[in-house]
Each structure stands twice: as C-alpha cells, then as structure tokens.
C-alpha cells in the first residue's frame, strides 16, 4: 500500500530538500516505486538537488489546475527508473495550490507509487500545512540547535492538529531525523546531544545524518547524496534511515562514537 511521507521542519535550511532527495533515492534503490514531490512553490529546489532542473516542463500547480496530466508533469530519474520527481512551480502564485487539488493529486499518486515523499516549504503557513495535510507519516528534520528544536516542536503540534489523520482522530506517525550533526562539536559539549533533542521532542529517532562536505558535493553534481557516493557517511546514514522508514530494524550509530582512541585524540586536537 502506498505511503505518503512529509519531510518537514518549520525552520528553513535544516536539510529538508536534501533529505527528501536522499531518502527518496534510497527507497527507490530498494526497487520500490518512489516519487518525490516539491511543495515549495516559488522557491523550488528539489529539481536542482535531483539534477532534473532542465527537464521540468509542467509542475504541481499545472496538474492541480488541470492544465497538464499528472503523467506529463512527472519526471523519471535518469539513474533510477523507480524514482520520479513532481516539481513545484517556480513562477506561479502559491495560492493556486488548494487543499482539494492537492488531495486529488496525492490520491492519484497513491495508485501508482509505493512511496510519495513531500518536500515541505519552511514556515508554519499554508504551504507547510498543505504539504503535511495528506501524509501518513512525518519525518521531522531537526538540527541539534535551539531554534531548530523549537520550530520542530511547533511543527509537531501542527502535525497533531492540522492533518487529515489528526482530524479523523487517528495517530500521526512522526519520526525525528537529526541532520547536520557534528561529532566534534558534540564532543566539545557545544552542541545539543542526541539524547537531549530526543527527550525534548519525544518522538522516535529515524536517523542521525552527519554534517559533511559530501552533501554539498552531491548537490553541486545534482545527485541525491545516496546516489552520488553510496559509501560516504551521510549516504550510509540516509540509507539506514530509509530502511527504518520501511519498517526494518537497523541498529543506530551516533556519528563519531565509533572512532578509536587515537582517532579521537587527533580529532580533538584538530578541532
């Protein structure tokens, strides 16, 4: 059965788009039909991170307004045939996105895809609530930093109030994805610890993604980090997170905590 995931955070720049692309590609690599949907109308970026910016013809709003068929707007990934992108509009007014229109598109996507991953815009306004409205599961992207944690708390409140699931009295499944985690800063005690964030937000942990140049490099190349370099640390962390999303039990590793003593010694000196 199709599963609709919203990748959300409240705060901007925490890694929602990066995570949508990476998780989408990791799920598609499992052979499951996956579509990543950009809800960030006016500030679309998912097409860039996916390396499909020159292939966009129609977008979500065209489909919502009936100017294009869903099949015309969907872009199939060049690397993975199970991976698709539904881009956002760059120029149109975001007021064209209606709750009913979005529902129709999501219902249609449910018929053909196993995973529908919605990349939410920042904020707590209409764009963000539309992106989460039809989700079965939420991935709350959070950085170990005070303002990001506070905004995630607001978003968790919205997920429990403004979604279809919440309105029907059902429980909204929520997962915490801790991104841009810096082991050196954590060791120095200048970054919130994983346990601190978990205790404050009290939702289950989906994964911890380390801060890494590999993420930047992947987006420069226009490739989800899980495809750009399958062996790099953030790719491994995203792949584990995708497996957990799919219901597998995967042991959690905190970045940096597997380093040996010598490594730690030198790592500390370098910091």
């Amino acid at each position, binding site marked *: 059965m199709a599963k609709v995931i919203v990748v959300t955070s409240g705060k901007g720049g925490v890694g929602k788009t990066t995570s949508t692309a990476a998780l989408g590609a990791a799920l598609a690599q499992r052979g499951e039909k996956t579509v990543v949907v950009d809800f960030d109308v006016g500030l679309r970026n998912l097409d860039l991170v996916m390396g499909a910016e020159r292939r966009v013809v129609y977008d979500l709003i065209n489909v919502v307004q009936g100017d294009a068929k869903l099949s015309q707007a969907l872009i199939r990934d060049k690397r993975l045939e199970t991976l698709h992108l539904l881009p956002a509009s760059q120029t149109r007014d975001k007021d064209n996105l209606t709750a009913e229109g979005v529902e129709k598109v999501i219902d249609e996507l449910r018929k053909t895809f196993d995973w529908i991953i919605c990349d939410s815009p920042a904020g707590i306004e209409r764009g963000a609530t539309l992106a989460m409205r039809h989700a079965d599961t939420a991935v709350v992207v959070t950085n170990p930093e*005070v303002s990001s944690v506070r905004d995630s708390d607001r978003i968790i409140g919205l997920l429990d109030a403004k979604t279809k699931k919440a309105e029907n009295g059902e429980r909204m499944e929520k997962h915490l994805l801790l991104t841009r985690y810096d082991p050196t800063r954590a060791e120095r005690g200048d970054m919130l*610890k994983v346990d601190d964030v978990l205790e404050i937000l009290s939702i289950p942990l989906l994964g911890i993604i380390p801060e890494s140049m590999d993420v930047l490099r992947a987006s420069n190349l226009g490739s989800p980090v899980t495809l750009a370099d399958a062996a790099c640390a953030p790719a491994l962390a995203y792949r584990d997170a995708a497996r957990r999303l799919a219901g597998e039990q995967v042991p959690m590793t905190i970045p940096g905590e597997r380093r040996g003593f010598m490594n730690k010694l030198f790592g500390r000196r370098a910091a």
Partner: protein
Amino acid sequence: MSLFSFLNRRSSAPMARERLQVLLAHERAQVGHSDLVGLLREEILAVIARHVQLDQDKVNVTMQRGENVSTLEVDIEIPVTASVRAA
C-alpha cells in the same frame, strides 16, 4: 582566547537544553490553552445562537490558569431587543 579562559569555559549545550525545556513547556501550554478557549467560545456561541440573536463580538470567553484550579469565565451580552427564537 587565553589558556585560562579556555580551561574555564563551560560547554554551552547544557544551557541550550535547559532553556529549551523551560521555553517549550511554556509554549506548549499556551498553544493548548488558546485552542481550547477558541473551541469553547465557538461552541458556546453556537448553542446560544440557536435561541437568541447575538452579536458575536459581545461574547467573551477567558480562562485563568491557577496552580491547582483553572476558571473559565463566559461573559455574554444579550441586547434587550434581541429576538428570542422559539425553541
């Protein structure tokens, strides 16, 4: 940064954690609060409007949170000329 201040410097994460815990406890209570009062106001209005014509702006619902008990205050102004609807 001198060696002395480096040795004296306490890590900042525990402070972040503490501030967040206090702040979020406060913000969560506020959100729950305003939602509840808004809901009560709407439903009370609907019930009364079934029987009396009301000016929506003349309905005040406030909640006072105390340590042990909270009180709900409902203040509704009904004009003398209001037409009373048959029940």
